[in-house]
């Protein structure tokens, strides 16, 4: 068919520039291209959300910036590709993005049958319920017969169904395409409950015109470890993404922040010296510059800084560290040592 051939040919010509190699060596491709392609949400405050200048902000965004700082030495060299829940995995599989950092839950199915690898956990989350205060409900077990707003295509949809079945309760699922619409449906009173990962509930709650009218129920009905995802079969890139995240966590543990890291460059503390690339294996094993970890902390900050800025007390969301505190402070965030 001549016409289709023509389409393909013209298309290929017009985008000569945007034809990318998605072959095995992502790290080399990223270095050659000069920027990291990062899949993010179409807008969840605190995780990835464009501000009014169109700059992407959020925890997931900071992970991408960290990867860019490590690989290219410049945290701003990221191309953000907003994806909805449906497209995210195909976008990664097809090579449209290098890393998916988009509130994605690590599950067995996703890790094993989609050709993907999860590179770590940026946020330990669990599914919860957001409910209107004036309903007077105190526990999720009182929700029998409630209408529930859910975002489609997520693990949430399945968890909710499981939870209600398990507790012999009924519910009415009202399924929306995007987080924004889910909130609007909840706000309009279409449903009694909004269910999503608990952190997102905080993010979505500030999207209500009166955030104080809604509360989050104490129950957490699932484990939702969220983290960056890469394609299977490219171990070098897998390592880079994994260790970019670890570096942010280690930096917090070592007390390195974007403000003080310059002053500690010549520190005698061997852990810090290894971190900033003055001693030890440096960046060779990862195929990165020696100061890769320094660049991350200098330009993006450590895990705690990113958390506070986007999700924690310095953000409108005001989420407690909880499970996401460092392991030595009662949380689960634990990174293998850099040595």
């Amino acid at each position, binding site marked *: 068919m001549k016409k289709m051939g023509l389409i393909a040919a013209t298309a290929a010509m017009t985008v000569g520039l945007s034809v990318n190699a998605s072959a095995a060596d992502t790290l080399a491709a990223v270095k050659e291209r000069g920027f990291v392609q990062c899949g993010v949400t179409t807008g969840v405050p605190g995780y990835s959300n464009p501000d009014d200048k169109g700059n992407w902000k959020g925890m997931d965004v900071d992970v991408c910036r960290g990867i860019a700082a490590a690989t290219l030495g410049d945290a701003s060299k990221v191309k953000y*590709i907003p994806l909805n829940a449906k497209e995210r995995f195909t976008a990664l599989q097809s090579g449209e993005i290098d890393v998916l950092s988009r509130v994605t839950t690590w599950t067995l199915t996703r890790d094993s049958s989609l050709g993907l690898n999860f590179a770590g956990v940026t946020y330990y989350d669990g599914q919860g319920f957001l409910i209107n205060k004036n309903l007077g409900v105190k526990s999720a077990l009182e929700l029998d017969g409630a209408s529930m707003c859910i975002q489609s295509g997520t693990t949430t949809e399945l968890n909710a169904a499981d939870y209600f079945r398990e507790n012999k309760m009924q519910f009415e699922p009202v399924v929306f395409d995007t987080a924004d619409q889910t909130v609007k449906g909840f706000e309009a009173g279409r449903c009694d409950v909004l269910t999503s990962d608990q952190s997102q509930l905080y993010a979505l709650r500030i999207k209500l015109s009166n955030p104080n009218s809604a509360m989050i129920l104490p129950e957490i009905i699932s484990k939702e470890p969220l983290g960056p995802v890469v394609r299977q079969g490219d171990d070098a890139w897998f390592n880079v993404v994994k260790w970019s995240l670890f570096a942010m966590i280690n930096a917090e543990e070592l007390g390195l922040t974007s403000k003080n890291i310059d002053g500690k460059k010549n520190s005698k503390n061997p852990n810090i010296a290894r971190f900033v690339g003055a001693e030890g294996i440096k960046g060779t094993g990862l195929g990165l510059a020696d100061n890769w970890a320094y660049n991350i902390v200098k330009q993006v900050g450590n895990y705690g800084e990113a958390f506070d800025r986007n999700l924690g007390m310095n953000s409108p969301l005001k989420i407690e560290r909880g499970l996401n505190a460092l392991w030595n402070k009662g949380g689960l965030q634990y990174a293998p040592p850099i040595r």
Partner: protein
Amino acid sequence: MSDSAKVTDTLLPDLPPPANSTGVIGWMRMHLFSSPVNALLTLFTLYILYILLVPSISWALINADWVGDNRDACTSGGACWVFIYNRFDQFMYGFYPEMERWRIDLTFGMLAVLVIWLMVPNLPKKGLVSVLTLVVYPIIAYFLLYGGSFGLEVVETHKWGGMSLTLILAIVGIVAALPFGVLLALGRRSEMPIVKSFCVVYIEFWRGVPLITVLFMASVMLPLFLPGEVDFDKLLRAMIGIVMFQSAYMAEVVRGGLQAIPKGQYEAAQALGLNYWKMMGLIVLPQALKLMIPGIVNTFIALFKDTSLVLIIGLFDILAIVQAGLSDPNWLGFSVEGYTFVALMFWVFCYGMSKYSQHLEKRFHTGHGAR
């Protein structure tokens, strides 16, 4: 005057019509209260209009706030157009870098000049300008918008958005679909059975499925169809989907135009010894294309409205960008203003184009007599 002047040899002027059939009252009697049923209908309609229009107008215009920097400027209880005012640039240009926005202005400015040239009836060199618009202009527009050469900075397509993206999608959809549409229409009217059936299948397939599934296909499946090392931009994938979809509709418009050309024209061309392509290219298509313009404008309107669907695959067209703006914590609760604005933008464009197309239809109609 004497009362004897009853006979006259000049024509007396007509008496004025009875007072109740002229002027405002007469007009109302004729057009609004011609029968009891009509009178009731009129009053009922007036009542409904009163209920609907008065609050809307006072909300949108009289009690509205127009300028300011943040939501505190909205105090009067009506519409808060400050929201639109503050984000207007973003709604128009998306995330296109501020320094480079002149490129979008220039691109659409050039297009406006070309299109107006084509629309105003008495300007010369229409043929040359059409070629310029359809062939040269898209290339210039591509380099202007995307950049990457002539010293222009590259602006990645993920930064494109807003009204300009909506227009780009619609225009690319139409311009690129036109040649495919012509080929498909010719194929469908061809006497070669395989060519014909192939074109029929192609056209009916794309006309039978909703655009939204086509966009899903383009965004989710297309990457799987291509060899592993090739990867298209998301915007480009959406465009491919739209063009494939649109070319089927275009083919039907072209077919309509071809059918309107009398058989004598074909026969005369063949009698002159022209081969198929010459007959089509020199005799039939030039006449048919002119007749197709209203149809093309109508499909363009349909496509223009349909581009709002790209929001479902995560491109930031004007609807999507307004929705994103609506979820900004600083500007919560202005969805009515946001949607009204988008609706108004679309309406102005579509209404303008449909009036133009109706005007053309009338012009062609009188020009050609029966069609």
